[in-house]
């Protein structure tokens, strides 16, 4: 009675593919889990900003001009535009199209570098130091949080790009390229609310 039962085959899965694209794949769900974690962090940081904003007599405090809009707008336009080649890359990766995927990775890598450059100018023109007051601390918190995500995906994209030019990918690696593009979509989508909190709120308060 207390012995292992015999095993009888009732089906075979040998013909199943060795990877699946998008939400049908396993890795996508892991990436999604980390997006949930990071998304929760963004929401809570934004909530903290609104919490202190609601209590502040003036936002920004006396003597602090709002962040300069020019570089912020340029960053916003470019990151929103980056969604187009990113979606194209995701589709080509899911079709296991190697030349197109390589091209897409190079384009996204270049866009990431350009965005990091713009972000540097943005940070230099926030018109407040993090150590000046709570307003400055929160502005910098939101910007650092988002910048760390841009940088993470940029490093990831560059590594995958180098790998794709030097190796012969299989379906699992195309799925990785697709999932990396999905993560960039997350980075793009998180920016507009942060833009409104950082650039809009000081102007409308």
């Amino acid at each position, binding site marked *: 009675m207390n012995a292992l039962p015999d095993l009888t085959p009732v089906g075979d899965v040998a013909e199943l593919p060795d*990877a*699946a694209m998008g939400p049908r794949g396993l890795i996508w769900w892991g990436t999604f889990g980390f997006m949930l974690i990071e998304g929760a962090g963004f929401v809570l940081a934004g909530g903290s900003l609104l919490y202190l904003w609601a209590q502040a007599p003036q936002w920004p405090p006396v003597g602090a001009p709002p962040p300069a809009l020019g570089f912020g707008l340029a960053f916003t336009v470019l990151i929103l535009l980056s969604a187009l080649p990113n979606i194209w890359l995701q589709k080509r990766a899911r079709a296991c199209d190697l030349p197109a995927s390589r091209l897409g990775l190079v384009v996204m890598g270049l866009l990431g570098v350009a965005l990091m450059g713009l972000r540097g100018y943005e940070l230099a023109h926030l018109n407040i130091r993090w150590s000046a007051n*709570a307003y400055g601390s929160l502005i910098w918190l939101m910007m650092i949080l988002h910048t760390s995500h841009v940088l993470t995906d940029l490093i990831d994209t560059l590594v995958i790009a180098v790998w794709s030019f030097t190796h012969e990918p299989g379906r699992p690696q195309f799925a990785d390229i697709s999932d990396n593009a999905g993560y960039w979509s997350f980075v793009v989508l998180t920016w507009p609310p942060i833009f409104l909190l950082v650039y809009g709120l000081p102007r409308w308060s």
Partner: protein
Amino acid sequence: MSAVPILDRAEAEARCLAAWRDAPGLWGFLTTVDHKRIAGRYVCTTMALLFMAGVLALDMRLQLAFPGMHRMGAQGYNEAFTLHGSTMLFLVSVPVMEAMAMWLVPLMLGQRNMAFPRLNAFSYWTYLGGVLMLWVPHALNVTPDLGWFQYPPLSGPGYAPGHRTDVWAQMITFTEVAALSVSVNTAVTILRMRPLGMTLAKMPLFLWAMLVASVMTILALPAVMLVTSMLIADRLVATHFFDPVAGGDVVLFQHLFWFFGHPEVYIIFVPALGFVAQIVETFSRRRVFGYIPVVLSLLTIAVLAFGLWVHHMFAVGLPKLGASFYTAASMAIALPTGLQIYCWIATLWGGRPRLTTPLLWVIGFIATFVIGGLSGVMTASAPLDLQLTDTYFIVAHLHYVLIGGALFPLFGAFCYWFPKATGRLLSERWGKVSFWLVFGGFNLGFFPMHFLGLMGMPRRIYTYGHEMGWQPLNVVALAGSVIAVGGGLIFVANACFSFKRGAPSGPNPWEASTLEWACASPPPPYNFTHSPVVDSLTPLWPPPQVLPVVTGLSLDEREVLVTSVVDAQPVHRQASAKPSIWPLVSALAVSATFVGSIFTPWALVWGTLPVAAALTAWFWPHRRLTPGARRLLGKAT
């Protein structure tokens, strides 16, 4: 006789063993991605810490047993309760529940490993970094001393110079990274790696509990990571998040901390409900009464747990309407919890219970947790809470909930799955002795604290005067604690002795119903040669002569089956990660970054390089080079 074809188990086992076994010796120890080995070291580490936190507790009980004691000064006492609380909450309770999930979930799914094996290894090494982050500074006399939640302004740069607070805050970053890694892994494994036939509606309750707890962890823990990072920033780079003079707010810290802190209680408690479900079902010898209501109540707890955090802040002086809302929400969560208690009682009532040690722990849980739940309903009322907060009533309540509600089921789970993990049975006699000593000692030790609280004894005082009249009950509390610790030592001794000398258990000594009992005890590195197919909630009831399985997963490569979220239909095969040193190297790089960032913010900048390099090596896919790359590297085509 039956004409069904039978697979050659011996050949399949030999081939799987070759594919899944670790390298021998130290290298194998450092590189393993076997969920059972990693979970085992997680459990052992948490138990060592439980012992150390227990010693601290005894020390504090001794200090308080008599008035006017000065064997421990105020500073020493502050350090003792901070170390005790921080260790128990961050380094024992949450990690041990996740470790149990890490060990059990793949086995209960008939799987060979979890979805992301290397993430498990990374999680453990990072967790170990958190343990060292707290206890090594303690050895160097840099012990945090502001309690397990370190409110500013007391913990801010103005009132807490030195690095005691930084040590505490960064220990949290370590442990939360570790916990989040396991949680994503557990949730994805449960959602995408169920065996054929195990639809969501046929999923064992332990898996439901772990899925709920994992999602709660994913949504709650970012709050504490954020708030402790903000605290470190206030201390290190002069930000002003919690500085009212510069527009910050100390209450923001409390909101963020308890937005994590209250779900945390349920992140500890919900897995325990999963243990209870499996134990009650097995030893009642019938299916759990009210499967669907229990699942719904788990989901309800998960939602409500995020709407209660303010009841930890009633004494702050919140608007009355807010306090009333959180009073109502705090009382409401008693409903789904109570419903489950009734379901366990109904299952026992309608079954044929076998009063073994695991079931005794569950019965102890029901009795103790009901007391803790009732004192929780009492303190949910804002006016009463205002009287009781920061008194020993709260100490009694939280220990009834956490020890009775989580550790008793955990000890029951240890007894229940010990034969599966070791292939040997625990001594029932000594198991029962240890249960009665712990159960009796705990209640003797903690029940009087309700009265001490009502008599006005505050928490976190290192001594008191004769005239307060608190001595007799404190002596009783000391006696109870000593008895409970004695019981705990017998529990450990029983486990150690049985590990070597216990009677062989066989694969399914309890005649249980779930899939982990359909593999050998202890399970081999690959767990299952073939993925099982199930058609009910209790696939091993009645005990099958033959277990239906699917073939086609590689026996010679590490490969797992991925299925659909709701119906568990087969979707694809997935290569399962091989052993690797890179999770350990990544954890070391992350640890160096975290420790360095206590001293300089530049550590976060420079730390990015080794962390990125280690993660790149971790995820680098090993495939054939392109002809151009081969020429470039001078390799033969």
